[in-house]
């Protein structure tokens, strides 16, 4: 299966780029998962998590973003983020 070229850019520079099998993010109309061959899409990003699944499988790279947008066409995905923090979402405080 084909891979997608991912580029994640912030205002001050490129944050990450490379190939991925799948990318999921929180788009304007809910969670969106992008695989190779997805139709061209241009969407607003909502505050949430971006997950980039590497080609060979394994743990996804994660970023927490405040907003931005993503554009995908011909297997090239560009994600523009406002404020991104690498890493998993901090664990929700457990109720006692």
């Amino acid at each position, binding site marked *: 299966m084909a891979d997608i070229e991912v*580029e994640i*850019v*912030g*205002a*001050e*520079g*490129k944050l990450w780029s490379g190939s991925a099998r799948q990318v999921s993010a929180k*788009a*304007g*109309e809910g969670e*969106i998962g992008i695989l190779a061959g997805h*139709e*061209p*899409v*241009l*969407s*607003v990003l909502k505050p949430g998590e971006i997950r980039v699944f590497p080609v060979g499988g394994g743990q996804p790279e994660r970023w927490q973003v405040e*907003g931005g*947008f993503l*554009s995908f*066409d*011909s297997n090239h995905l*560009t994600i*523009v983020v*406002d404020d991104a923090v690498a890493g998993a979402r901090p664990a929700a405080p457990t109720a006692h």
Partner: protein
Amino acid sequence: MAGQQRVYRQRIRSTQSLKKIFRAMELIAASRIGKARARVTAATPYARALTRAVSAVATHSNVSHPLVTERTDTNRVAVLVVTSDRGMAGAYSASAIREAERLIGRLTEAGKEPVVYATGRRAVSYYAFRGRELAGQWTGNSDAPSVETADEIADALLTAFGAPADEGGVSELHVVFTQFKNMVTQTPHVIRLLPLEIVDGVEPLADDEIAPLYEFEPSPEDVLDALLPRYIRSRIYTCLLQAAASELAARQRAMHTATENAEDLVRMYTRLANQARQAEITQEISEIVSGADALAS
């Protein structure tokens, strides 16, 4: 005569210490310029992604947006002047201000009312000295502008553009900044940022490329709404970064020339001091000789 020699020696000493300062400033500018250029390069992917997305929306939908439509209800126009905080950069700030003044003159002739926004202490003090009012000013960090500063400026200008005519709204936004072409050429440049002319900015597609048919989520209007302010911010940030790189290049060149001039001065004063010393010796000898002659006769 001995007094003259001392004066020259003093001048040589002070010129030498000035030369050290100039040399230091040249080296500082030279070391920072690489970083400034790297920041320009680093910001390019963001700007490019935004431009592509904006042109994609523009070509695939006929949505109109306040930021792309001409305003006719007011004749006030905003002019943002980007200069440096400190001098010692040759004609850098002066030529940006001169370009801005020319633009303001043109706008006034066209029956518009320019409202000036300034970044950098040089522009702020220029307008303050002439008693002209600034609608907004930002100082500090002109040689390493941050995204936050750019956002602040963009927010202020977007607010002005969105404000009603009787509350200080403006119908256009022009930016005067110094474009960094290379290490020796930086030219003042004027761009009209608002209202946006998207049609001109669309990237032409290669022959074998077909413009992708995008799906917009949630809707073209919402996407445009999110894109355009970001686009403006990124454009302003790019302008600031270019200006910073130009400022450092101008400073490096100015300080290099200053160092060379100081060297010339030191050389000249050394010659004059030597001349004075010789003159003094000659005079002493002739005094002794003529004294001896007077006694002998």
